[in-house]
């Protein structure tokens, strides 16, 4: 029989903070953390903006992990969020470490290792390639270092589905616990600012000229952020027996692929539709039971339009009663971390019985009659959440989180 899966620990490192209470309050207030960036540059680009993380000293990269903490920024964020989630779950020593694993996702992961190498080779020639590059440029080390940090010996793997990577990792972790292959999993995603992303989005005219405005008629593109989100998943029954705080049940997920274009989303939000419908089929959740949708909501014209169309296709008239919001309006698009952070947000929404807003919304996309939770969070009865994510290449994943009685 399939085991039920609980979320018992949450950890984030974001521009809105790393303490869950402060993070949640900042989101509910609709505070925007997208600002001029210091300490990160990209060739030929001036006045970059983004939502940067100020890590508490306690979260700094452990000595010896990398000789250059700036270069290893993604690892630093991943380790910090996982440490916080692990502590939040109170799971240390509870399980046989061999039955606990790590599923982690990233869009670009260790891209800074590539940038670092390019600069060294440009200055010093091919001899600048060092012995550690092969290991450091391997994104799997994000998952591996988390496992080492917590002395875990279960399945440890890295999923890459571009900006839905966090959700893909969480979905894969869910399957392992549901099937009994693991007792608990640490799952999430991390990404930092990379010049590939900034330069690429600039050339595609997909970078917002100011601050992103998801679901606003004036939206003009993405604003980026950095960060990491991690959740601890356990067998629900065992979590209950040990008296763990259960934020939510992860009831299952849906997954789809657009197969349409290497960057552009599929037409009419079709991929989102199939992911949401599969999520409902797999979990037995009826559309009337859905209380909230955490949108991918990047602020690009095409993504947001597709998401609205998908809401209409899946929920029909009922869609007007299903609030949908995008926290990317506050902490930027954190790429592979985004959906993992948003899973934490859904867990907190279920815990606090409140919904985070879409900030900066002044002229909402009105054609679909959707409730975007404009500008300020609000109390709400929250029973079941969908957390939607999409990535370049057409990778869509929809998680289903439910309140546990």
């Amino acid at each position, binding site marked *: *029989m*399939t085991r039920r899966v609980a979320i018992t620990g949450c950890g984030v490192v974001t521009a809105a903070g790393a303490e869950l209470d402060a993070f949640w309050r900042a989101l509910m207030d609709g505070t925007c953390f997208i600002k001029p960036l210091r300490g990160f540059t*990209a060739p*030929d680009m001036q006045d970059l903006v983004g939502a940067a993380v100020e890590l508490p000293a306690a979260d700094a990269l452990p000595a010896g992990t990398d000789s250059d903490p700036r270069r290893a920024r993604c690892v630093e964020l991943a380790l910090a969020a996982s440490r916080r989630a692990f502590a939040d779950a109170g799971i240390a020593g509870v399980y046989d470490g*061999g039955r606990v694993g*790590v599923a982690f996702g*990233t*869009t*670009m992961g260790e891209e800074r290792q*590539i*940038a670092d190498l*390019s*600069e060294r*080779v*440009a200055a010093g020639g*091919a001899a600048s390639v*060092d*012995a550690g*590059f*092969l*290991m450091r*440029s*391997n994104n*799997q*080390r994000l998952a591996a*270092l988390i*496992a*080492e940090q917590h002395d875990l*010996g*279960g399945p*440890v*793997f890295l*999923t*890459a*589905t*571009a900006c839905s*990577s966090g959700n893909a990792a969480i979905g*894969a972790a869910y399957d392992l616990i549901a*099937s*009994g*292959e693991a007792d608990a999993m640490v799952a999430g995603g991390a990404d930092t600012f990379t*010049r*590939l992303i900034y*330069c*690429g989005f*600039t*050339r*595609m005219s997909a970078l917002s000229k100011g601050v992103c405005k998801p679901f606003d008629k004036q939206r003009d593109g993405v604003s980026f952020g950095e960060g990491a989100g991690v959740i601890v998943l356990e067998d629900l029954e065992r979590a209950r027996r040990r008296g763990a705080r259960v934020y939510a049940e992860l009831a299952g997920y849906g*997954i*789809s*692929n657009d*197969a349409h274009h*290497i960057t552009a989303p599929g037409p009419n939000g079709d*991929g989102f539709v*199939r992911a949401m419908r*599969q999520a409902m089929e797999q979990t037995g959740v009826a559309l009337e039971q859905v209380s909230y949708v955490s949108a991918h909501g990047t602020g690009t014209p095409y993504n947001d339009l597709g998401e609205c169309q998908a809401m209409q296709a899946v929920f029909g008239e009922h869609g007007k009663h299903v609030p949908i919001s995008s926290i990317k309006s506050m902490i930027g698009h954190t790429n592979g971390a985004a959906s993992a952070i948003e899973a934490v947000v859904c867990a907190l929404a279920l815990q606090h019985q409140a919904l985070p807003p879409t900030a900066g919304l002044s002229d909402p996309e009105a054609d679909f009659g959707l409730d975007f939770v404009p500008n300020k969070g609000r109390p709400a009865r929250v029973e079941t959440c969908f957390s939607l994510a999409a990535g*370049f*290449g*057409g*990778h869509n994943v929809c998680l289903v989180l439910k309140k546990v009685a």
Partner: protein
Amino acid sequence: VTLHDDSRARVPIVATGASVLTPLADDVAALVAALRDGKSSLAPAADLGGADASRFSAFDATRYANVRGMRVYNRATQMGICAARLALNDAGLGVEGGAPLDGLQLGIVTASTFGHIDTLLEYDRNLITLGVQRTNPTLMPLGLPSAPGAAIALAFGAKAFSVTLSDGGASGLGAIGLGARLLAHGRARYCVVVSAFTLAAELIASAKAAGMLAPAGELHVLDRRAQGTAFGEAAAAIVLERADDARARDKAPKGFVRAHAATFAGSSARRADALARACRNALAGSRVEPAQVALASTSANGVPAVDRAEAHALLAALGDSAARTPLTALKGNVGDSMDTSGVLQALCAFEALRSGVAMPIARFEEPAVAGLRYLAQPAELAPGCALLTSTSDSGACSALVLATRHD
């Protein structure tokens, strides 16, 4: 997919299509024949500092697939697309006169850690030297780690899912396990597990600087003389589906994916124990006793620590059966193709189980670790299952059990 307590995961999963692209051969039977004959594609590569490498110089994408936009993709992506096409064709699915392929029922799992890296390096070099405005913008999305998988899914209209697993040498077996799990849970009807590895100069240079490479002509796997590895280009793909679906369309399976299990040990000193645990979990998940293992296939690559871990893991997992279970490894012939190796191992194991003959370990003379039945020559196999193992440098361990029957 350890199958022991999830009723959904008990759904038997079969392989119905297979392909390989290596310098030795571009079909599975020919590759296995070459391996049985002890052939090797390794040769010194001047552009890689004289290190041995296996390079598929004759690869020409247009020979294998006519896919729109192929030219913009890097070599690994092209090889992956071609391998997927050949495997779908072999499975009789909609490519060349086969059954119509419903893209909504097709998923792709790609095992790729570095399949994007030459594009990413090129993009970054251009940013530095040419600036943003003169850098080809189409390179950017293709520089993502997920890009090869996305391009393969796009090429075949795969709308069920596309997931990339980036776990180094453990990716291939892990991807087969993930694909089988997604099928068992009803998320697609067909899944192509595909992988391609190409020789990126920066990676080879780093491996050389780390002392990982064997001197030219000295790649010895599982052998006392082992002193390093050599890398090899390859692509491989396998089509998985539920046994009932294959039966319904009268497609004879190449074999069954019985169980996959994964573990981890960051410390190389604990790697053998972790891999042994993965083997035991996979055997338990497939309800197979060590004595029923007809063939063991390892990802040993000539790096002494890696080879020792694989050997000690098999000794521990197979117990009393270790000394009589034929043991093979293919990297001595075709080099280490990282993520792709696991898929190659699986295809060769299916062929070995089918033909009843196992291929030997190239140039094997004297074991580094005693107690196992290393094959220096081709050997006949008893009926049974195959146990496949692999590890990554980061510490991921994977074990897969394959069989020609589902008991």
